[in-house]
């Protein structure tokens, strides 16, 4: 019996790893889109927070979590458009503009959410085990007994992979990130595409934030993302700009996150502060190992990442 009890704890941890990884996954997929087009957006944390608060407010107003999803994506897209305008049209420094977006989003979300702190969400997303798949032993409870937003990622990740590597627009996207001048000379609309992908990335980051406030911990708390936006940025590097690797990575990070919660269950006596440090320390270590061990991490980055596109010079 003791053994099956431990198996259950392990399954519980892995299942939590999936839900804890999902907000990071959405945000990382969004950042992946933007970076593939050549634009670094360090505003992920701010976009997630904006999405989290707007999603929460809309879900509360309409008594429907899907309304929250729509609002979060619109909000995330809207604030990311600022970054797109500054970096694509005005060719401002991408790092500083992203930092500004994070600071702006943190303030904006705190401002909008002030009166919602501590308000419970009556209709959050809840787990809906998938018929059939949910009953598979071990795999069922780990992957198929979650809320709909988790299932959407199961479709989104392969779809994105196919888009990147098997479609013409995907090829154009990679070309823009690799060499916008060449792409431009072939008639690919560089400016328009960069706008599009930065905004799409913002929408996904907003959705990732809303996952926290609508499903993971249905409530609004100031700074509730707690650095997940930054972890998502790191995850993109870890994933070598590949959506499938991003998914694996997100679950590893989710697992570290979940471990913090579950260590007590396992009877490990560690001060909670140290457990909370784990995801951050792990992020730094992963970056060091990934970049240190294989230089492909750098080779895999879009060639023109962080570079403004200017048709008159290069």
């Amino acid at each position, binding site marked *: 019996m003791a053994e099956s009890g431990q198996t259950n704890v392990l399954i519980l941890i892995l299942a939590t790893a999936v839900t804890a990884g999902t907000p990071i996954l959405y945000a990382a997929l969004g950042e992946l889109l933007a970076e593939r087009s050549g634009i670094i957006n*360090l505003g992920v944390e*701010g976009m997630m927070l904006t999405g989290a608060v707007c999603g929460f407010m809309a879900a509360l107003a309409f008594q429907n979590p899907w309304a929250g999803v729509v609002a979060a994506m619109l909000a995330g897209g809207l604030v990311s458009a*600022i970054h797109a305008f*500054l970096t*694509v*049209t*005005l*060719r*401002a*420094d991408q*790092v*500083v*503009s992203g*930092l*500004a*977006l*994070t*600071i*702006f*989003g*943190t*303030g*904006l979300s*705190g*401002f*909008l959410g*002030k009166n919602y702190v501590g308000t419970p969400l009556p209709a959050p997303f809840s787990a809906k085990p998938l018929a059939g798949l949910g009953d598979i032993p071990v795999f069922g409870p780990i992957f198929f007994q979650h809320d709909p937003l988790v299932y959407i990622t199961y479709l989104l990740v392969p779809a994105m992979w196919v888009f990147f590597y098997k479609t013409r627009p995907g090829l154009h996207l990679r070309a823009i990130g690799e060499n916008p001048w060449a792409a431009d000379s072939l*008639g*690919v*609309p*560089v*400016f*328009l595409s960069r*706008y599009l992908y930065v905004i799409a990335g913002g929408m996904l980051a907003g959705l990732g934030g809303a996952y926290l406030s609508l499903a993971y911990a249905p409530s609004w708390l*100031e700074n509730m993302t*707690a*650095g997940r936006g*930054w*972890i998502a*940025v*790191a995850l993109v*590097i870890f994933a070598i700009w590949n959506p499938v690797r991003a998914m694996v990575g997100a679950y590893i990070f989710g697992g570290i996150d979940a471990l913090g919660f579950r260590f007590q269950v396992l009877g490990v006596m560690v*001060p909670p*502060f*140290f457990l*909370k*440090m784990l995801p*951050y*320390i792990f*992020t*730094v270590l992963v*970056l*060091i190992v990934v*970049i*240190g061990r294989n230089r492909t991490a*750098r080779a895999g980055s879009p060639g023109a990442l962080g570079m403004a596109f*200017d*048709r*008159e*010079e290069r």
Partner: protein
Amino acid sequence: MKGMRGFVRLEKRGGVSGTSVLPVTILSVLLSLAFGGIFLQLTGHDALEIYGLMFSGAFGSAYGISETLVKAIPLMLAGLGISLAFRMKLWNIGAEGQLYIGAFAASWVPLTFPDLPAYEMIPAMILLGMAAGGLWALLPAIPRAYLGVNEIISTLMLNYVAILWVDYLVFGPWKDPKGFNFPLSAPFSEAARLGTVGNTRVHTGIFFALIVAVIIYIIINRTKWGFEIRVIGESEPAARYAGMDIRRNILLVMLVSGAICGLAGMTEVSGITGRLQPNLSPGYGYTAIIVAWLSKLNPFAILLVSVLFGGLQVGGYLVQTSGVPASVATMLQGAILFFVLGGDILTRYRIRPGRGEVA
């Protein structure tokens, strides 16, 4: 060819005209305040009243000005620390954590040796606070220098670790047994406190900031090391070609940058709180990034801009009484940085309406 080419056309100016930088910055700040005003108005507040309240609260009385300076001191120090790294295009986003670690190490002195006289206590606190902040910044600098690991993410991640470390101490081993279970360390002895100016909370940390500003100005403009920092910041390949040791400079600059941010933590615990406690900083390390950027990394401008942002912080606290969340200050900070970034374009390019087709 089809597709959008951008709404406007940017033509590069011959050079950045020095005289246009200041007016453009001021214009950018005014525009962001206008934007914030519209936002406040749309969310059902009286923008003029709120701005009035913020301004008079921060600068309208002797008390307001003194509190503004209190908030400006950590911004000055952290901003100066950050500026040194930014000068070399090293994105030290870890000032917040370096401040906390500096505060932790500085606190260790009076908590362990409460009976030291002030002339030993204060220098020891300064030394330890700076050393700890510097070493904390060195942690992400080493993988950056040797492996090229992006320092933005690693410096930022370490902020969370540093804050949790201080939380652990004040909730755990360093909690004052006589503190009614509040998460505070024991109060420091009088010898560990920085002197204050008159009856205000403005402490002598402000002089540290002035001294550091002068030192940084001299380093950057008058020393060979400063020259190297500037060259590497301008163009790493050029610096390498000239035989400069980039690796050593990364380590050194981050060490010094972190040490100055650590000093900001030391002055907070020694000058303001008189003990180690959680929530030492309302995000000084992040605001300082904006301060440094807005000041174009000029150390004396950083001192001035810090006072403005200190005022914004104080104003933000004050308007809470009229139902406006204090986060309005953070939001305005972000907006200011946006507009300044956009405004920079005006100093570098001439904007022509029309599409950016090649002529």
